[in-house]
């Protein structure tokens, strides 16, 4: 049994900095994501997003997922889950001056080729199915985790919410949705309350679904 003191997210960060590839691409996104460019802007968001996409493209899942999907004892207020929230440098890559409506954000994602295709992948691969044992329609946690991490570095960049259970969301909400309130809630819930995605993240964190980072031979 793991000790209560054990911080999986810290252990993943240590492992990353001891690996030359992970260390290089980690610092390659943290640098632009933490460099102030002017008095008005905390960072160059475009450069930060690009470097984040590179990190998830180039670094083996063992290390990149290790940091993004590390498991923490009970969601809130621990050094572990705060560190997990900080993985993507949310002050630059996630937060914005104003929180847009989720459907407005989705429309802006559709105008970008990368964002449009990655959002479609995410909806296809993390589709929940209550009748299946895995909780997913496509019973493949690896594909779900891959398409979720693929959203990082787009305008749909999701992050963990400060919530007792695992819950994620892009930086948007459903206030001022007008007649589209239901559509917006459905879109937002796919992130915040998705059993398939939650099970996939938990399985990786617990090390129960080994096939995710160690794919079976064809």
């Amino acid at each position, binding site marked *: 049994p793991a000790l209560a003191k054990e*911080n999986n997210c*810290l252990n993943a*960060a*240590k492992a990353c*900095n*001891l690996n*030359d590839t992970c*260390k*290089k691409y*980690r*610092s*390659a996104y*943290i*640098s632009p*994501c*933490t460099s102030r460019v002017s008095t008005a802007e905390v960072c160059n968001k475009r450069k930060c997003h690009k470097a984040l996409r590179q990190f998830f493209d180039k670094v083996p899942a063992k290390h990149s997922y290790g940091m993004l999907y590390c498991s923490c004892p009970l969601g809130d207020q621990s*050094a572990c889950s*705060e*560190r997990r929230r*900080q993985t993507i*440098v949310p002050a630059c890559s996630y937060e914005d001056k104003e929180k847009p409506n989720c459907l407005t954000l989705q429309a802006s994602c559709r105008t970008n080729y990368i964002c449009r295709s990655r959002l479609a992948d995410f909806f296809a691969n993390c589709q929940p199915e209550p009748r299946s044992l895995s909780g997913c329609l496509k019973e493949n946690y690896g594909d779900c985790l891959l398409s979720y991490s693929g959203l990082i570095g787009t305008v749909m960049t999701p992050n963990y919410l400060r919530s007792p259970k695992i819950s994620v969301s892009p930086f948007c909400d459903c206030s001022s949705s007008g007649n589209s309130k239901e559509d917006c809630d459905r879109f937002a819930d796919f992130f915040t309350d998705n059993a398939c995605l939650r099970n996939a993240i938990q399985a990786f964190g617990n090390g129960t679904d080994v096939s995710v980072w160690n794919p079976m031979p064809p």
Partner: protein
Amino acid sequence: GRVQVEGRGCLLKEIHLNVSDLGLGYRTSEELIFRYCSGPCIDAENNYDKILLNLSVSRKLDKDSPARTCCRPVAFDDDISFLDDSLEYHTLKKHSAKKCACV
């Protein structure tokens, strides 16, 4: 190119440390591999170094003591980033050696 036989003793070595061991004042539990250059450079010395040695022995340079050949990094490792205990990121540049030479 030219075969370099001088400075064979000057080697790249590495040690696994805590970031807090570096003494730069960061409070974090993150770790790193620190690489450094170490070893003798006597076989890489030229007439300039021999003259300096002779002049300092014969006390002809007054109080000056110019440095002789040193085993130093000629290239640095990639930058490293880490999160500190107050959840702030830091990036260190030119903190660790990548290639060594007698210079």
